[in-house]
C-alpha cells in the first residue's frame, strides 16, 4: 500500500478537524521514519550543521518515543553557538534545512527556551543526535 494511504487518526489533538483534504494533504507529507533513521540522517550532516552554529542536537517528542504517525512532525531541540550570533532568519533557515535533511517536517526548538512542563518531558525523552 502506498505510504501516504496509511492514515491514522490520533486521539485528542486532532478531534474536530473534519476536512478530508487536510488529512490527505498531511498524509502525503507523511514519512515512516524510525527514530534511528532520523538520528542517522542528522549525524551524517553533523559537519554542516556544526558550521551553521548547531552545537548539540536532540530528537524528542513522538519520534523519540517511537510513536510515529503519519502526521508527526520531527521535534528537534538544539543548543546554538553564541559566537555565530544566529538571528531569526538563520533559525528559520536552519529549520528548513533540517527538514530537508530529515525528509519530514521539522519543528526546531532552542533548548534553553523550552518551558516547564514541556521542558521536563522533552529532556526526559530526548535522544542526542550529536
Amino acid at each position: 500500500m502506498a505510504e501516504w494511504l496509511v492514515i491514522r487518526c490520533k486521539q485528542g489533538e486532532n478531534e474536530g478537524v473534519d476536512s478530508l483534504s487536510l488529512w490527505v494533504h498531511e498524509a502525503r507529507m507523511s514519512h515512516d521514519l524510525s527514530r534511528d533513521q532520523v538520528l542517522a540522517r542528522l549525524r551524517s550532516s553533523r559537519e554542516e550543521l556544526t558550521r551553521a552554529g548547531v552545537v548539540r542536537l536532540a530528537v524528542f517528542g513522538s519520534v523519540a518515543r517511537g510513536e510515529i504517525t503519519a502526521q508527526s512532525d520531527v521535534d528537534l531541540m538544539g543548543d546554538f553557538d553564541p559566537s555565530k550570533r544566529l538571528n531569526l532568519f538563520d533559525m528559520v533557515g536552519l529549520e528548513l534545512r533540517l527538514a530537508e535533511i530529515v525528509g519530514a517536517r521539522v519543528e526546531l526548538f532552542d533548548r534553553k527556551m523550552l518551558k516547564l512542563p514541556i521542558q521536563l518531558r522533552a529532556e526526559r525523552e530526548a535522544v542526542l543526535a550529536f
Partner: protein
Amino acid sequence: MPFRDSQLHLNDILESVKSIEAFTRGMSCESFEADAKTIAAVERKLQVVSEAATRLGDDAERLCPGLPWHNIRGIGNWLRHEYRRVDKTTIWNTVVEGLPPLKTAVVDALRQWRLIGAGERQMVLEQLAASEARLLEVVDGLTAEQWRFRETPERWSIAEIVEHLALFEGFILGAITNALKGPTEDDKKPLAAGKEHLVLGLADARETKFKAREVVRPVGTWSDALELIAELKKARARTVAFAMETKADLHGHFFPHIAFGDLDCYQWLRVLGQHMNRHVLQIEEIKADPAYPPF
C-alpha cells in the same frame, strides 16, 4: 501582482524596520534583553515584516534578489507561538544583523518608484481613463455628416480631431520613451515643478489655442469612424499600460512643450489626459454650432 501592491508591501517592511530602529536606538544587547516592552514591540514589527514578505510572493525575489525570503516569511511562525518563544539574543541579533541588509535592499527597490509615488500614478491613471470615457461618449453614434462637419473651412472636423488625438497620443508616448533613454536632468526639476498649474489648466483654457505640430496634424489616414475610434483606443491603451508599469524616473526626464517649455515625463502623461479633455470641449463647441448637421 499589480505594482502598487508590491510597493505597499515593501513600504510596510521599510516602515517596520524604521520603527524597530527607533525602538532600539542607543540600546545594547543587555539593555534590550532587560526591556520587555521593547522586545514585544520589536516582535510585533517583525511579524509585520514577515506578513508583508508573504504578501509580496514571487515579487520579493524579483524586486530584492538574494535576500533569504523563505526565512523572512518563516519568522512569523516562530514569533506567533508563545510556547516556542525565541531567545531574546536571537531577536537582538535579528535587529542588528538581519534587518540592515533587508532595509538596504528594500530602499533600493523603492527607489525605482521614488519619483512617481502610488498617489501620483493613481491620479494619472484615473485622469487617462476619465478623459477617454468623456471622449468616447461625445463621439458616440455620430452620423457621417457630423463626423465631417466643419464650423469654418480651416477648422478641424470631429473626425480630424479624433485622428489628431490618436496621432498625438502615439507621438507623446514615443517622445516620453525617448526622453527616458537619455540621462536624468535634475537641474530642470525646479523649472518644471512650477508648471503644474499650466498643465492642469490646459483643458479649460480654450481661449488660448495652440497650433498642432506638423506630425500630429490629421491627414485622413483612417477614413472610417469606427476605425478612428479603434486607433485612438489602442493608442490610449498603450499609454495606460505604460503608466501602470513604468518604473522609470519620470520626474527626472524632460522634453519641451510647444507653449510651456520643458515638462517632465510625468507632467507629459498628465498632458495626455488634459489634452484629450481640451478636445472634448472643442467637439462640444462643434456640436453646438448652429450649422451642425442634425441626426
